[in-house]
């Protein structure tokens, strides 16, 4: 237990804060701890969490990607074109969206690896390029004419309360669970995953050990591409339409969640559990402010403060033993 606390300080701390937050909200509102509220929280955040675990893989490998949310929009648009011609279903849809997402991810990987340019620069470039192309071809118009299988609600859980209100979980929550489990398996249980951690932890050491850096870039950005595509597919099912600029800006919200969950910018650290906690923290904070009737403008401020506290506290370490010589014996 002590090892768990020492090894995953951010996750443990965030979990504690989250539990406190939930208890606080359960006591101060009578709406938070209801089945309806919890299921709608999950429905509304499935897409973010799918993105978050995808982004986690890239962060672990020592990269960053700003373009995934816009890439998801591109996938939505391209998939819509395919589904207009070909009769589809969810299996086929997931395959198509994954394929498009994979391609967009591999473009990032190829540019980053081929030109040896830092990932933030490349993905800012592709972020702009994808968005520009999308707006150019769609002329900013929404698509409402979508196949029924895509927009029909599918519930994986339904429950009617005594007062007649329904609570239900969308298909996207199920897809989200599958994505989360698969990502956890990839990074924890496969040799590829361990090489991703190693590459993020010590790139030079990984190269000298013979890790195939090109393959690792493809896995990391490709995985995020696939997750982005699948999340895009799910988001259409929730929103019932394809809006070209609907996802623009969501990338920073997801990045904030992943970083809050303890993933290290620069690589080598981060867990799926942290991602889940990070996304939940942001979701529950927002939800709580709503339920308490506090101005939604406070939300951004609170998230900003939370990130500051989470990141700086992980550098401070909460023991008050005198710091080691190595830490203070430093000269300009």
């Amino acid at each position, binding site marked *: 237990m002590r090892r768990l606390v020492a090894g995953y300080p951010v996750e443990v701390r965030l979990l504690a804060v989250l539990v406190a937050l939930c208890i606080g909200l359960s006591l101060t509102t009578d709406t938070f701890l209801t089945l309806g509220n919890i299921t709608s929280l999950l429905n509304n955040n499935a897409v973010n969490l799918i993105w978050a675990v995808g982004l986690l893989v890239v962060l672990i490998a020592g990269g960053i990607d700003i373009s995934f949310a816009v890439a998801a929009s591109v996938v939505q648009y391209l998939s819509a074109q395919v589904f207009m011609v070909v009769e589809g279903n969810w299996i086929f849809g997931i395959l198509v969206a994954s394929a498009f997402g994979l391609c967009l991810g591999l473009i990032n990987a190829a540019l980053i690896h081929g030109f040896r340019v830092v990932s933030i620069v490349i993905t800012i470039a592709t972020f702009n390029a994808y968005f520009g192309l999308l707006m150019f071809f769609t002329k900013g118009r929404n698509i409402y004419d979508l196949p029924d299988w895509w927009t029909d609600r599918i519930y994986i859980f339904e429950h009617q309360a005594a007062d007649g209100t329904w609570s239900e979980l969308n298909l996207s929550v199920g897809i989200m669970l599958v994505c989360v489990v698969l990502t956890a398996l990839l990074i924890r249980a496969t040799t590829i995953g361990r090489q991703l951690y190693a590459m993020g932890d010590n790139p030079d050491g990984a190269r000298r050990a013979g890790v195939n850096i090109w393959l690792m870039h493809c896995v990391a950005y490709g995985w995020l591409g696939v997750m982005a595509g699948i999340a895009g597919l799910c988001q259409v099912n929730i929103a019932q339409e394809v809006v070209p600029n609907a996802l623009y800006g969501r990338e920073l919200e997801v990045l904030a969640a992943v970083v809050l969950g303890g993933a290290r910018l620069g690589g080598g650290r981060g867990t799926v559990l942290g991602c889940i906690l990070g996304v939940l923290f942001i979701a529950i904070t927002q939800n709580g402010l709503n339920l308490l009737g506090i101005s939604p403008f406070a939300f951004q401020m609170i998230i900003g403060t939370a990130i500051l506290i989470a990141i700086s506290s992980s550098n401070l370490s909460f023991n008050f033993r005198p710091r080691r010589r190595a830490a203070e014996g430093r*000269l300009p």
Partner: protein
Amino acid sequence: MTDASAPPLALRLRNLSKTFSGVHALEHVDFEVRAGEVHCLAGENGCGKSTLIKVVTGVHAPDPGAEIEIFGARQSAITPTHARAMGIAVIWQDLALFPHMSVAENIAFDTMVGARPRLVRRRRDRKAAAAVLDRLGERLDLDAPLNTLPIAQRQIVAIARALMGEARLVFMDEPTASLTQSETDGLLAVVRTLSEQGVAVVFVSHRLAEVLDIAERVTVLRDGKLVGVFPTEGMTQARLGELMTGSLLSHEVMAHDRSGEPAVLEVEGLSLAGKVEDVSLTVRRGEVVGLTGLIGAGRTELAHAIIGMMRPDRGTVRLDGKAIAPKNIREAIHAGIAYVSEDRLSLGLIQPQSIEDNTVIAVLDKILDAVGLISPTRKRAMVSEWISELAVKIGHPSDPVSSLSGGNQQRVVLAKWLATEPRLLILDSPTVGVDVGARAGIFRTVRRLAEAGLAILMISDEVTEVVMNADRVLHMAGGRIVGEYDPRTTDVATMEERVYA
């Protein structure tokens, strides 16, 4: 045909040359390592040691005409994977480990690379890692993240990782550079264990004493050429140093009596809770005072207390008879103290910046023009003064500091601090990671600065070094000064016994 009585060879190189864009890094070098032997590869920085290691491990291809035999098998081309499969492993100076991964994962990491992707076999890797550590007679927490381990234990992890790949020939590139004396002894014991188990070890080190201690034979390279292969039996440090540098190094005690000179630094009853206990010392004009002792004896803390990086609890510090109590390094510089830290590479210099910018960074206020902007003329004048004064070998002052060799970088650090025109210079472990020739250069500089009237306090954990180069030697242990020695009447061996005991 080989002589039947000769032990089998782990590695045999004949006529090895390697040219980088016209420059010979290695020229017609022959090199042999016997199976299970501890062999030292010695030479100054840039003599071709690293190039040799990189050719054998397949990082660089040799020039045509070279013959390479590994465990008796003739090799035409070597790739890194191939080298590893043949049982060759390198422990790089930076260890190339993964700080956030566990000890077990670090040791077993190479088994995950190169092969087809598969599931991680945690339990098996853990068991294998434990078995390898057992072979080395070491006990480590397998689940601890690597970055929680001290450097010495990380070395063990790196060695274990090499053994995990069934290594039979291990190259160790300066494994002891950042270890203390007792940690070094531990490492050398592990190297002996390896050798007893039939693993050949090629050991690269700047510390000649341990080279002679551990190796059976030593191959000396100079400027890419083979100087010779010598048994360590009967070899002395002085002789080895000469072979490496090609010139006679002075091995005389340099001490002078400076007791008639006025005191520059006077420390009285200085204490720092738990670190420094009631220390009093004096450094006179033109005097080099050596301060030695084990790591953790409080040497660095004493220096930090003098310059105000740590606030002393009690005691006074006087500079030129005037009591000072600097609150930070800026005030110490202002008072006339320069402190050159032990980690020159990462802390002393701004690597990507130019030599000139690094030289003047501590004295920017002295090179301002009338309007308060940096004057290029004054800057250039100051830089050229110090570069010639310290004989720094450079291309152009605007080249980045990272283009210089370790010894020359050390001189730039010195120049940077000397430009502040200090009264007292504190050198903390000035020769860590510096090769023999450059060390001699540093000590010549130190001596010259002292002759010019500077008072110098030199901290080092190598007793030989302080005895050879200081006018007086202070021995520190447990935060106290426990002895004072006159190098002219002290025997290095007895002194070493006392310090390392």
